[in-house]
């Protein structure tokens, strides 16, 4: 074998060795990379699960926030209703003067219910006739005296049941054509009068749930307040009350 051939063989042997080493290194590197990919895949999977959990948590918090917002709005509306009822009660029981109580009834209906057409009736001592005590924005003449049981207002007082119009009934004629509500005034189960509310304000299309609560409150508290004023009148009026207060001072 010539020297040149020996060199060539040696050269190929070295190339073979280095290629084998290189291949081994590559195989090792490949194994390491496979392990790394596996680790990364596991981490990615964990991250995905974490993200899913976070998304679920965010959705839950968002739903909770929405529920709180809805509840807040409900409470705000309830609060507004309670304030209206409080103010109405305060006004009705804020005086023992008959005219003041009538004025309070008017203010409540105008400003809280939303009608500028109303009448307040009180039952005569015989219990046969509703006598108009005050009115606002209506023609008084047809309603000055309403026999108990006559028409919607008289029937409402006779039965002791509140009347609220149904839209279909709007077509009726006569002085009660525009009647929207009639509230009997009741003290201790006894009808003492009635409050009639005719057309609502133009921008108020219909009664709302709070209006029914206000009307219920008028039915009982306005009745009691008016009844108290009559008791005060029978016992000598406000002057007598003030005189008694002065005489009782130590």
């Amino acid at each position, binding site marked *: 074998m010539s020297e040149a051939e020996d060199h060539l063989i040696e050269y190929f042997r070295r190339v073979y060795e280095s290629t084998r080493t290189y291949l081994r290194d590559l195989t090792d590197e490949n194994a390491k990379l496979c392990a790394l990919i596996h680790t990364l895949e596991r981490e990615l999977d964990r991250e995905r699960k974490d993200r899913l959990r976070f998304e679920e948590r965010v959705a839950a918090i968002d739903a909770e926030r929405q529920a709180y917002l809805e509840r807040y709005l409900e409470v705000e509306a309830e609060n*507004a209703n309670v304030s*209206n009822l409080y*103010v109405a009660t305060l006004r009705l029981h*804020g005086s023992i003067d008959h005219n003041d109580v009538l004025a309070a009834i008017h203010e409540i209906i105008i*400003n*809280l219910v939303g009608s500028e057409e109303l009448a307040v009736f009180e039952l005569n001592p015989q219990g046969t006739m509703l006598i108009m005590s005050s009115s606002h924005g209506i023609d008084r003449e047809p309603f000055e005296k309403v026999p108990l049981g006559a028409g919607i207002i008289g029937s409402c007082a006779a039965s002791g049941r509140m009347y609220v119009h149904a839209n279909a009934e709007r077509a009726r004629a006569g002085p009660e054509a525009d009647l929207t509500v009639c509230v009997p005034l009741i003290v201790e189960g006894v009808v003492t009068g009635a409050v009639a509310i005719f057309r609502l*304000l*133009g921008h*108020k299309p219909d009664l709302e749930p709070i209006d029914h609560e206000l009307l219920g409150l008028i039915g009982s508290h306005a009745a009691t307040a008016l009844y108290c004023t009559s008791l005060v009148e029978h016992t000598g009026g406000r002057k007598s009350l003030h005189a008694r207060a002065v005489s009782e001072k130590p």
Partner: protein
Amino acid sequence: MTDPQPKAKILVVDDSSTVLIMEELLLRRKYEVIKATGGTQALRLAAEHRPDLILLDIIMPDMDGLETCRLLRGIEATKLTPIIMVTTRGEQKTMTAAYANGATDYVTKPIDHKELLEKVERCIGARE
């Protein structure tokens, strides 16, 4: 420690005690409420207290809200003060008259608490 920021002042004008009590209940948590029962008293209190906002009823016995509004615009203390008309008369011609007399905005009765608070906050926020 710094003093808490003073509350903005609101002058509420209405001949109805029912409305005055309700507006005070609604506003007193965040604002200082000054009450007047008529236009003449409103003009005096406005000059005295220089309110940040005025809630003004339209139908009042001594001087109606439109006239009061016009006169308030003539006073130095209230010539730029926002005035919200509070009224049972929600029709267009009343509102046009209110704006012509210097009103900033209006709400109708029965008062929607949320609407009133939003308008009050908007007016006072814009002023600040």
